[in-house]
């Protein structure tokens, strides 16, 4: 099968500690994958390693069958955690989405009609086309995530990596974002998301990766969301409740920590 991401024997150190250890898995094209695990379990570091933003100690990463070079990176759209961005920067929603066109253009570039159309189309896809001229700082957290997603779409990325897209976002917007990701997956994109929202992964994702430095399990959510595997992933940080045929997972750590 065609692979969007292939990772083998990956070790990554962050702040001189091993953050990701001996990770091997591959994501088929068109899949929607949720990466879950405790804080400090290496979720963000794993995404950054795929993008080549943190140096690997060991192992290989392939994007659509190619090594991570500049051409391959253009095919990956990345939506960072909200804290990584200066929201008071004087740019409009449209300016931000237009940044998605920059990796594939030359010096002295001025946006062409096609670039503008791609940016507008991306804003339409995420339902933000009416707000193109509003400064980025005036949007809610959920809207900002959608605009950043539109930037990845304007880049014409095939693989979308989102780092905790719903943290700090109100519940209705969380659902909107996951619905949006689902429809992008239906349209053929590969979607990889780190999240704390286990029930959402269980409901809407094809695959779940349980990560606590090492891969605890990787498979369909209904197969890997078992008490044993979740306990192994979260160690003492997660309580599993069984109520009839429902399983409820409660995390006892602070999400924003």
């Amino acid at each position, binding site marked *: 099968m065609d692979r969007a991401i292939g990772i083998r024997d990956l070790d990554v150190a962050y702040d001189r500690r091993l953050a990701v250890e001996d990770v091997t898995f591959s994501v088929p094209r068109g899949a929607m994958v949720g990466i879950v695990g405790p804080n400090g379990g290496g979720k963000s570091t794993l995404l950054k390693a795929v*993008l*080549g*933003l943190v140096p690997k100690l060991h192992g290989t990463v392939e994007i659509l069958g190619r090594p991570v070079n*500049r*051409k391959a*990176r*253009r095919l*990956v*759209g*990345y*939506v*960072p955690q909200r804290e*990584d*961005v*200066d929201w*008071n*920067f*004087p*740019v*409009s929603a449209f*300016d*931000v989405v237009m*940044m*998605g066109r*920059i*990796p594939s*253009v030359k*010096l*002295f*570039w001025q946006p062409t009609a096609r670039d503008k159309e791609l940016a507008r189309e991306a804003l339409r896809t995420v339902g933000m086309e009416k707000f193109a001229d509003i*400064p980025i*700082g*005036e949007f809610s957290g959920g809207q900002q995530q959608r605009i*950043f997603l539109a*930037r990845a779409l304007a*880049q014409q990325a095939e693989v979308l990596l989102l780092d905790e897209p719903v943290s700090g976002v109100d519940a209705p917007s969380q659902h909107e974002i996951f619905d949006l990701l689902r429809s992008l997956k239906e349209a053929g994109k590969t979607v990889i998301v780190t999240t704390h929202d286990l029930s959402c992964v269980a409901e809407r994702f094809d695959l779940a990766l349980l990560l606590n430095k090492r891969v605890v399990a990787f498979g369909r959510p209904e197969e890997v969301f078992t008490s044993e595997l979740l306990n192994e992933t979260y160690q003492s940080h997660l309580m599993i409740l069984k109520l009839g045929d429902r399983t409820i997972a409660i995390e006892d750590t602070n999400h924003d920590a």
Partner: protein
Amino acid sequence: MLEHLLEPLQFGFMQRGLVAAVLVAAVCGILGSFVVLKGLAFIGDALAHASFGGVALAFVLGANIYLGAFVFALATAFGIGAVSRRGRVSFDTAIGVLFSGTFALGILIISRVDRYTTDLFAYLFGDVLSITEEDLWTIAALGLVVLALVAAFYRQLLFAAFDPTVAAASGIPARFLEYLLLALLGVTIVTAIQAVGIIMVVALLVTPSATAYLFASRFHHMILASVAVGSFSALLGIYLSYYLDLASGAAIILVATALFFVTLALTGHMRKLSGISRE
């Protein structure tokens, strides 16, 4: 009114001073917008101080002052990066160590050659009215280089300034752009040191752009507004220094500072009226 505006223009030094000050303010307004948004004020100040070592050395050796200043500013910029990457020392601390060292070197050199002292002090505190035609050409040429490079890399620089992580992730040469910005900052500072002086260069970089930041909602508006605010401060400052016999560099900076506080009060008032906070 008109004759007050025209009267100083009969003097060659006033013409040159006005042209030089506006050129410098324009270049500073462009680079300053990046400086304000990326929080580079301290490193800008440091590069200006560090360039004094180069100015003094070039003066003593009879070399080109601008070249000396540029070499020292650039070497300090890259030195700061190297020191902070190598050891446990933070970026901030590396800046503090290196710029004071190179500035002290400049002071040491002029303390040994007292016949130059008064000339060299013009570089410390600025003397835009002593600018020669040759200086003017140098400033214009350096300004054009900055303008051309910013135009060539404008979108990439904007992307990397707004969201460096994603810019790097999407294949933009982020490290190269970082060094490019530092080099451009070095060139800009060098063009400005004779107009406003090493000690006050950072004000011309930061204050007009900070003023523009208060009301601009798009990046190119911020650049245009900070060029306008800077140029206006330069013109008004020089006229004030002519009629009131004030130090020109200080007059330019104080006009810019006053504009900043007026804008701060106005935009704060308007924000209160509309009930919208950008924080």
